């Protein structure tokens, strides 16, 4: 009985398979015949050959890993930021290193620096409707609403935004809690970009943003097609307020994760723009490829110590670990892209009110570019582990990536050699790793922070006790620190910076993190691409780019 039913099942499956097979065969030849608009993107998806027609205005760009989202309100990652920056535009934008009005035509600031009034220009969304102040109000409220679960909603707090409202269709007023010099710059940041209510409500959790039928944008490019894990294609937005200046006819953004594969594609001419290159190739590229650029970047690569996990709850242990690594050697022989050894967490990109470089002025507590071996050993002995005796095996965790691995291996050996400490390396996938880090179930974890605005606050704000489980991976609590940062938000001028210096010192003396280097950005842009932009937040903008 069983056998017979099994046989019957098999027959049914085979017959079904036959039909499925036939169905596929009959449909395929029919498709090109009735050329429906939805299928016009198909031919473009074939092997790109940009070299054939020299003046073809198509840009082939490697985005890297598929962005988690390209919804401005939800995005928290660099890769998504690149795409968003080309599709949406905020009140202001950064072009050639200067901030200029974008959706806003002009703005006024009250005398006390607390109230910003933006007057919007006659810009249109890609569906032809006007960009209004209400769109901004709705978009900002959406980010702040708890049910949106935006990972970046805290940035409104960091920007000291108190209230905001649309006075009329063209006037948008923002009131701050205290004068905040970097607020204006932040309006060019994706979390502050406008989105359209109808569009967002058409697809939950950012699904609208990757659906060309639902996505409504106000930037230079709009979404033409999106194939998850493979590519997305952008075409010019005809309603963009400077549409006449947009020369590219198409941007093909491919998602090649492997850096060496992407480099091969670039050198073979199938990619025009590349953002990551394998570290092994950097020396060669510096020497022989004039299209290889190393740009400064506002960011710090560091390791976070979990201060709740023994033996890292002892400040001397953390101090020993931090002093024992040779940052210069890592920059020179491991990362190789001109990175600067980091002696504190604040990247050297922002200045205080007196015009001093904040990072330099903050200095370091005993950290040197090269390893301070004797001090490190002394600190370890102070902690009760002379010459590393009795020190348990330490676990160092990083997210799966060649670049992180090689740095971790170098540091593992430095700790072994200088402190006689055994370290186990573990790696986790990015998504899992982020959760692990937030939950604090690690001893030492890799981390990196790219400044969101040009102010030391973007770094120091990470370590407040309210940010435990978000950006304070070390789970460090210091009430004085919290108070200093809270007070700094409303303090004026240099007084504010003095508070930030004090706060910075507190972080350093606690050795809650181990700064390794300040990022640089290694990019490759083919000769034929002109007028490309990479702003100080290291985000691409191809609005005025063209190919020649």
């Amino acid at each position, binding site marked *: 009985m069983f056998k017979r039913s099994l046989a019957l099942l098999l027959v049914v499956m085979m017959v079904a398979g036959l039909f499925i097979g036939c169905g596929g065969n009959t449909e395929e030849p029919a498709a090109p015949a009735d050329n429906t608009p939805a299928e016009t993107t198909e031919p473009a998806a074939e092997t790109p050959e940009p070299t054939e027609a020299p003046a073809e205005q198509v840009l082939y760009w490697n985005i890297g890993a598929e962005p988690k989202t390209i919804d401005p309100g939800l995005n928290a990652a660099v890769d998504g930021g690149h795409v968003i920056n080309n599709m949406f535009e905020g009140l202001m934008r950064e072009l050639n290193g200067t901030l200029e009005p974008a959706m806003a035509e002009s703005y006024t600031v009250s005398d006390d620096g607390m109230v910003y009034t933006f007057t919007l220009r006659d810009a249109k969304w890609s569906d032809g409707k006007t960009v209004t102040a209400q769109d901004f109000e709705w978009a900002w409220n959406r980010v702040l609403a708890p049910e949106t679960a935006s990972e970046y909603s805290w940035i409104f707090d960091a920007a000291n935004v108190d209230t905001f409202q649309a006075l009329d269709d063209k006037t948008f007023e923002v009131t701050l809690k205290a004068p905040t010099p970097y607020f204006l710059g932040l309006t060019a940041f994706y979390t502050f970009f406008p989105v359209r209510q109808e569009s967002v409500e058409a697809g939950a959790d950012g699904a609208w943003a990757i659906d060309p039928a639902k996505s409504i944008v106000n930037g230079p490019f709009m979404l033409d097609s999106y194939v998850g894990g493979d590519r997305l294609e952008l075409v010019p937005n005809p309603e963009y307020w400077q549409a006449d200046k947009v020369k590219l006819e198409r941007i093909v953004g491919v998602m090649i994760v492997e*850096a*060496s594969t992407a480099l091969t594609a670039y050198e073979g001419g199938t990619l025009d723009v590349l953002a990551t290159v*394998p*570290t*092994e*190739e950097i*020396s*060669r590229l*510096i*020497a*022989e*490829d*004039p299209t290889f650029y190393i740009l400064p970047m506002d960011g710090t690569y560091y390791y976070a110590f979990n201060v709740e996990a023994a033996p890292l709850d002892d400040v001397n242990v953390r101090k020993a670990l931090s002093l024992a690594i040779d940052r210069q*050697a890592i920059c*020179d*022989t*491991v990362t*190789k892209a001109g990175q600067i050894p980091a002696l504190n967490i604040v990247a050297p990109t922002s200045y205080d009110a007196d015009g001093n470089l904040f990072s330099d002025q903050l200095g370091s507590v005993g950290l040197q570019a090269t390893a301070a071996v004797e001090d490190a050993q002394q600190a370890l002995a102070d902690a009760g582990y002379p010459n590393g005796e009795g020190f348990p095996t330490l676990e160092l965790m990083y997210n*799966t990536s*060649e670049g992180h*691995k*090689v740095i*971790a*291996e*170098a540091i*593992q*050996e430095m700790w*072994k050699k200088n402190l006689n400490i055994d370290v*186990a*390396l*573990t*790696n*986790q*996938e990015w998504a*899992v790793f982020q959760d692990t880090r937030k939950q604090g179930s690690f001893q030492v974890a890799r981390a990196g922070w790219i400044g969101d605005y040009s102010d030391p606050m973007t770094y120091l704000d990470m370590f407040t006790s309210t940010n435990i489980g978000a950006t304070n991976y070390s789970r460090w609590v210091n009430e004085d620190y919290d108070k200093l940062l809270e007070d700094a938000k409303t303090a004026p001028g240099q007084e504010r910076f003095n508070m930030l210096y004090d706060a910075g010192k507190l972080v350093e003396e606690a050795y809650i993190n181990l700064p390794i280097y300040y990022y640089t950005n290694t990019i490759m842009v083919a000769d034929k691409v002109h007028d490309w932009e990479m702003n100080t937040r290291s985000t691409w903008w191809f609005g005025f780019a063209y190919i020649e």
Partner: protein
Amino acid sequence: METKMTNKWERLELKAAESEAVRKSLTYWQDAWRRLKKNVLSMVGLGIIILLMLFAAFGNFFTEWSFSDQDLDMSNLPPTLDTFDIGDGTLVYVHKEYTLYLVEEDGAKLTKLPIEDKNVMKKYNGYTVDGKTVVIDYSLAAKAKQSGDADAPKFQLIIDDQSFTVPTGQVYNKVYVLGTDRLGRDMLARLIYGARISLLIAFIATAVQFFIGVLYGGISGYIGGTVDNIMMRIVDIIATVPLLLYVILLMVVIGPGLKTICIALGSVYWVNMARIVRGQILSIKEQEYVLAARTIGASTWRIMVRHLIPNALGPIIVSLAMMIPNAIFTEAFLSFIGLGVNAPMASWGTLANDAVPGLRSYAYQLMLPSILISLTVLAFNFLGDGLRDALDPRLRK
């Protein structure tokens, strides 16, 4: 012969050659070994396997380095160094990164020289060696790339105003016989260590599949009926879950590492073995000697372990020999996609993976582990092939 025929009564000497050929009776295994020996490819395979095991076990006597020793100054040095003679027999080596190394004692001593004059804009690095000014001018690299000519010089070495583009000699790197990787670790030491890990994983996975697979298949085949049906459907279900999915899940639950890979491979790979053994047992259990054993009251366990499995051993051994390269390859593949053993441990797969980003500049780092992986897989396949022929009674001559 003729002389002997004169006396017909003389006793003839017993000559072995003229007597009727009496062969010593050979057991199954002796016969198999005899036939295996005749198979040249299998013996080559066996030889390679023995060599690899010796390499893994005793190789580290040939290198003074440990697999984890780093010297960041010595990163990415190849096995053979193209040297320039800067006069008085002083040899220098220009690294692919356009830094200068002093080569002494015919390659037995290497020193990275400190850069004295570094100019990134004009693309040169200046040194002083033995009182002479040595400049590596790598501005040619960009032109060489533009020309598209692979042989165009990428740098020139200017020694006291004399320019050299072609190396004057070549010495073997006697400090690091097979070169170093990107962190300045000895490739030979890492390959030896990798051999240990790769072979260890292969043997653990094989042992696990031997015990689980043989017992599972044996029980299923011998008991038969509903038990067989249920057990084989379980096997079918396990076989349908893709290995990769399985491994990634285990990585998340247990955490990556040697243990996880062994568990993952061991828990999936036995299903083939179970099927093979079951098939064998199904036919063997109908034999008279099994019936005889049963008649005299032998327990099921005894019949299985003493009668059934030994008689199915031929196909089992063949499948084991074939499974070892499979396990090595799977491990290499898992390591290659980043699901392998933890650093600084290295298997051949992780070594190959580490080398991929630098493929264009330092191809030897990828070649060495790849050759070893291919060689091992090939050797085990040759051996497995020969074993199949040797252990199959139907092919007996």
